[in-house]
């Protein structure tokens, strides 16, 4: 894993260089692009935005890294995050609770709803054998539709389609998200390296037959990672709601945090600590891509560039593995 870090860095750097190169060739304004680059990585506002944006991504990635270690390839973080933010909104703006009670509910309920939603692919896999890749993917879209429905009906506030807003006293400062993802990454790391559950995840992921032969239940391991990754993703949605979203409007597309989380988890070799940095890197790319629009680079370019970086890293990592 440590050895793969070189590949990740090299691939990431190469992809990044290529992306910047294409952008400057396309616009003919390299100075402004570099200026943007410096701004994004040195100024407080974009840095704060990077942190804010990285919270849902990192929470998803940390959970997914546990899941992928157990070879449970769910891509369902997307839907779980959406449901998590809905739950947090309900807890703070609709439940009627105030103060710390509302806050506690705003963290508990999203974690719970994310975990419960993650149960569906688990049950389908464990009891019917259905591939969790596809079921979780489909469930993402279902979650978006259900949420849109909720926003337009039960959560709708006033004549127009908008929800209530998280009351100012219940909102979270940006650094709370940072604290949360650091805590989550550390706990996930400790869980993996220092507990029986972590051992079960490692053993099951690397050798499912051995795990079963020596008394680790496949279902229990899958259940564990499903609940953990779903809960973390739900929490990620909650923190996003409390720290910057504050309200919801109907979505045309899934917001993409969960998909980004899946990519980040792989980029970081399913290492929760590495996922922390990788998601910060990933969200800084988003912020950078957004800032480049001032120079006339379309946002879609940033999307393509991110994917290009992932593909480059994939190749670099895979090449390295081939040599071993």
């Amino acid at each position, binding site marked *: 894993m440590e*050895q*793969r870090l*070189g*590949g990740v*860095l*090299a*691939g990431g*750097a*190469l992809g990044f*260089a*290529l992306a*910047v*190169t*294409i*952008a*400057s060739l*396309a*616009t*003919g*304004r*390299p*100075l402004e*692009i570099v200026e943007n680059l410096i*701004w994004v990585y040195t*100024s407080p*506002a974009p840095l*704060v*935005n990077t942190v*804010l*944006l990285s919270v849902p991504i990192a929470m998803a990635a940390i959970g997914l890294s546990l899941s992928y270690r157990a070879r449970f390839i769910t891509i369902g973080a997307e839907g779980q995050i959406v449901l998590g*933010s809905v739950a947090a909104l309900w807890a703070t703006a609709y439940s009627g609770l105030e103060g710390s009670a509302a806050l506690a509910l705003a963290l508990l309920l999203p974690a719970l709803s994310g975990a419960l939603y993650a149960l569906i692919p688990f049950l389908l896999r464990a009891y019917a054998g259905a591939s969790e890749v596809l079921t979780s993917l489909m469930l993402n879209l279902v979650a978006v539709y259900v949420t*849109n*429905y909720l*926003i*337009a*009906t039960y959560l*709708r506030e006033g*004549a*127009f*389609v908008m929800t209530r807003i998280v009351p100012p006293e219940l909102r979270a400062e940006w650094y709370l998200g940072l604290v949360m993802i650091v805590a989550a990454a550390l706990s996930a790391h400790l869980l993996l390296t220092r507990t029986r559950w972590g051992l079960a995840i490692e053993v099951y992921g690397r050798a499912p037959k051995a795990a079963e032969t020596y008394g680790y239940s496949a279902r229990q391991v899958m259940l564990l990672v499903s609940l953990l990754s779903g809960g973390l993703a739900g929490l990620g949605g909650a923190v*996003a*709601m409390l720290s*910057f*979203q*504050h*309200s*919801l*409007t*109907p979505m*045309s597309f899934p*917001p993409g945090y969960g998909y980004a989380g899946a990519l980040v988890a792989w980029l970081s070799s399913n290492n929760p600590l590495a996922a922390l940095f990788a998601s910060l890197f990933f969200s800084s790319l988003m*912020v950078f891509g*957004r*800032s480049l*629009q*001032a120079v006339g680079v*379309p*946002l*879609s370019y940033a999307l393509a560039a991110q994917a290009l970086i992932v593909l480059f890293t994939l190749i670099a990592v895979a*090449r390295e593995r081939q040599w071993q």
Partner: protein
Amino acid sequence: MDRREFLRLAGIGAIALGAGLAGGYALGSQRAERAEAPAKKIKALWIYVGPITDVGWTAAHHEGKENVAKAFPWLEARHIEKVKEEEAKSVIEAELQRERYDAVFATSYGFKTAVKELAPKYPETKFFHCSGEWEEFKDLPNVSTYFAEFYQLYYLNGIAAGAVTETCKVGYVPAFLIPEVVRHINAFALGAIHGARLMGKCGNGDRLEIYSTRPLLSWFAPDKAKEFTAYLVDRYNVDVVAFTEDTTAVLDKAEEYYERGKKVFSFSHYNDMFTYYQRRGRTLRSHLTGQVADWTPIYRDLLLKLYAGAYVKEDIWARLGDYAPLRWRRQDSLAGRPEGSVYLAPLSDQIPAKARDEIVRLYEMMKELLFEPFTGPIRGYKIDGEGRAQESARVKVESNVRLGRDELWYMDWFHEKIISPA
């Protein structure tokens, strides 16, 4: 990956980066034009909720932005697209901290919260919120609201629909049943009755049925919009479908039916699709007319005032005739051609001449507010967010009463002829 390999890759990256930057610089210096920089500059930022390639709402705003950027050398116009409403505040704030903008155009209703929170923190910057309620910002001196209103045009669409329908059934596919869309549906229904009565068909409009589907619950849902159109046509035998959705899916579906030999009509929305296609040598046969918005005159007006130092906090509700300064000098009507910030898309030949004349006549009258669609008596019934009836029909607008802005702005009832979704 060993050190050497890593260094090699890093080297390739560095060289590529250097070459790219240098190449870009060379290209850039070639391209650079020596434009005389005006002494005073206005910096404006547009925030879009969708992608500029949506061929709908965002594309229309983007066109307006591009037009003013071209027209005013003193304007430095930037935009950020695909800003999720939930992220808007942090995105806009980061930009505001980087540079001092004179104007920020927030082009989605959902940016309301962001504008409300940012405006007090950046008093130097003027915020313009599109489609927001004026009341929400009445205490903020640097926030104005603007909107291009379509209900008059929907009434005219309705006349066309009532005049051409052979089944005496017309339909509507709404994105949401919010007041804006509800008044569009009602205007369309009133217009359709007017059209049928004018042509003396469908029992002088009494037998005309107006079907509304359930709301799509998304501004962008082309696949669903098409399915709902098919539903209206296949299930209820509707032959004219109007809609509120950010794409042209309903019109596309209508054209599909037309191609298959079934006459189904629809309308342009935001953009004049008829002319769009005509320039490419193709005539849309299902296209009756439609509502078009041109944000350019609004942006031009707002920015010019700003440039002249004459900013006033205002609430723009652009309707027919607004931003059409030449209208007194013309003898002929411009109905069906660009005029002002909202106008009628080209009128199809398939609309009977009598109805076309009526549309042009009312178009001109509406410009002067001599005719107003929502004039009583109108009977209707209150609906919920999904269009279900909450009461039986009763008088909603008393005889000879004209609805005011606030009643229009918060409309929550369906005209009695509208058959609401099950």
